[in-house]
C-alpha cells in the first residue's frame, strides 16, 4: 500500500529522532514534571491554605495549574520544533532539498514536518495527563481530550512559526521569539493565576493571545465544564490561527525552496 507522500517525510524526522531522543527527555518530560510538582504541589499547598481555592472557583491549585502547564508545554515544544529544525532543513543538513529531489513536493515536505511536530507536541502533553490522573485531578472523562486540545495548541503556534522560520537567513531571530514571545506568554496567559487578577489593559492583551485560549480550553476540559460556546471560541481561535499559519507557510516554503 502506498504511503502518503507527507508521511514519507515524517518518517525521516522519526528516524532522526531515534538518534537524539535521550537528549530531549529532559526538556519535554523531566523539567515539565518538576514544574508541576513545585507549582502544583509545593506552591499549591500555600495557595490552597490561603483561601486561593475559593478564588480559583473551588478547585485545588494542582487542578488549576496542571492543564495550564500542559497547554504551555505544548506551545513551548511546538515553538522549539518549528524554528531550529526548519533552519536545519533549509541550511544545515539541507534535508528539505534532499526530499524535494524526490517525488515529494513542497506541500508534502511542509505537511510531513508539521505532522512530526504534532507528534512531538503529543509527547510533551501526555506526561501531564498521566500525572494528573495519578493525582486524581481529572474528574471529567473529557479530560482525555486534553491530548488533542494540546496538539491543537501546538499547531496554532507551529504553523505561523514555521512560516516565519522559512523566511530567515540564520537562527539569530529565534532567541527573540522565545525571549519576547514564548516566555511572556508562558507567564501571563493564565497558566499560574487567573488573568482576571491582571489590570484591565493587560487582561485584554491576554485574551487576544493564543496561549490563553489554549489554557482555558485544556482547563475547562479537565473540569468537564467546557460549554459549546466557549469550545467554539477557544478551539475556533486556535484552528483559525493554525490554518492561516499553514496557508502562509505554504507560501514562504514555496518561495524559499522552489526558486
Amino acid at each position: 500500500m502506498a504511503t502518503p507522500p507527507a508521511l514519507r517525510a515524517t518518517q525521516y524526522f522519526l528516524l532522526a529522532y531515534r538518534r537524539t531522543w535521550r537528549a530531549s527527555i529532559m526538556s519535554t518530560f523531566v523539567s515539565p514534571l518538576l514544574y508541576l510538582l513545585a507549582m502544583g504541589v509545593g506552591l499549591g499547598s500555600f495557595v490552597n491554605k490561603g483561601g486561593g481555592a475559593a478564588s480559583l472557583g473551588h478547585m485545588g491549585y494542582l487542578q488549576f495549574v496542571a492543564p495550564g502547564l500542559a497547554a504551555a508545554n505544548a506551545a513551548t515544544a511546538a515553538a522549539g520544533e518549528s524554528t531550529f529544525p526548519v533552519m536545519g532543513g533549509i541550511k544545515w543538513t539541507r534535508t528539505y532539498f534532499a526530499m524535494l529531489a524526490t517525488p515529494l513536493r513542497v506541500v508534502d515536505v511542509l505537511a510531513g514536518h508539521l505532522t512530526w511536530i504534532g507528534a512531538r507536541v503529543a509527547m510533551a502533553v501526555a506526561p501531564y495527563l498521566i500525572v494528573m490522573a495519578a493525582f486524581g485531578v481529572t474528574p471529567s472523562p473529557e479530560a482525555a481530550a486534553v491530548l488533542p486540545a494540546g496538539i491543537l495548541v501546538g499547531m496554532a503556534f507551529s504553523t505561523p512559526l514555521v512560516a516565519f522560520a522559512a523566511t530567515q537567513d540564520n537562527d539569530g531571530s529565534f532567541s527573540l521569539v522565545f525571549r519576547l514571545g514564548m516566555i511572556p506568554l508562558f507567564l501571563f496567559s493564565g497558566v499560574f493565576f487567573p488573568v482576571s487578577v491582571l489590570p484591565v489593559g493587560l487582561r485584554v492583551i491576554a485574551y487576544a493571545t493564543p496561549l490563553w485560549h489554549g489554557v482555558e480550553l485544556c482547563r475547562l476540559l479537565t473540569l468537564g465544564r467546557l460549554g459549546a460556546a466557549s469550545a467554539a471560541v477557544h478551539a475556533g481561535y486556535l484552528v483559525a490561527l493554525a490554518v492561516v499559519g499553514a496557508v502562509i507557510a505554504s507560501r514562504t516554503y514555496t518561495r524559499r525552496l522552489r526558486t
Partner: protein
Amino acid sequence: MPGEPLIYGRGLVKQFGTVRAVDSIDFAVERGEAFGFLGPNGAGKSSTMRMIACVSPRTSGDLSVLGLDPDRDGARIRGRIGVVPQEDSLDLELTVRENLYVYGRYFDLPRSELRPRIEQLLRFAQLTERGDDRVEPLSGGMKRRLTIARSLINEPELLLLDEPTTGLDPQARHALWDRLYRLKSQGVTLVLTTHYMDEAEQLCDRLVVMDRGTVAAEGSPQGLIGRYCTREVVELRFGPGESERHADKVADIPERIEVLPDRLLLYTDQGDATVEAVQRRALAPVSVLVRRATLEDVFLRLTGRQLVD
C-alpha cells in the same frame, strides 16, 4: 516515441529578479549518452540543471524531460531520475545505511525491496564496511560516493550530476569517474555540469559550453577542438613581462597566436614544424613545449580569460 530526445529544451529562460541566469538556450539530450554543461561560474549551468531536475520552475520557453512537462508532472519525473546536487544534503547524524533507507522511502520503495538494493549500492560505492557508521566522519570522497549511491536508489534512467567531483582529490575523482562509466555502460543517461575540462573530455559524448546564460558552442569534445582550435599548441615561455616584445617576431608562423604575460601560445596543426620555424628566428625562450590542444583551449577561447566573480 522512438527517436524523441530524453531531455529537450528550446528557448529556455530562467530569470531571478532582473538577472537572466539562463537566457534562451536550446539543447537536446539523447537516451544513453553522457551530456555535459560546461562553463565558468555563473554561466547558468546549475540553474539549467535545477530546471531539468524539476525543483526550479522555468521562467519561459519549452522544456521536456522523459517526454513530460516539469511544470505539470514534476513529481512523476523526479520519481524516475536521480539527482546528485552540488552541495551534499546527507544527514550527518544518521548512518550510511539509514541515509540510503530514508531516501528510498521518499520514493515509497518498500523495506523488502530496499534492503537488498542498499547492499548492492554500498558495494557499488565501495562503502560496505562503513554501512553502519555515521556519515559525519567520512571523507569528502566517501560522502560524494554515498550521494551518488543515494541518487541511484530508485534505479533512475537519467542521472543529473551538478559538479560531481568539485573539491575531491585526484584519487577520489578517478574512483568516481570509474563508477560513472559503469553506469553509462549499463545504459543510464548522464547529464553533468563541470568546470573541469579533463572531466568533460573523459566523460562526455557531447557537451555545450555555456557563457553568461547562453550556449556558446555545442558538439563532441574532439569536434569542438577541431572547430574552435588547432590540433596542437606550442607554448613559448619567457621571463615575466617579456613575451609581448617577442610576439611580432613569430606572429606569422602559426594559425593564431595568443600573448600572455609570460608566454606565447602558438596554435598550429604541426607542432614540430612550428618549433623549428621558431628556432630559426633566434629567440631565446626559457622553455618550449608542444602539446595537443585540449578542451581547455576551446573553453578559454569561447569564454575568455577574465575572472568571473
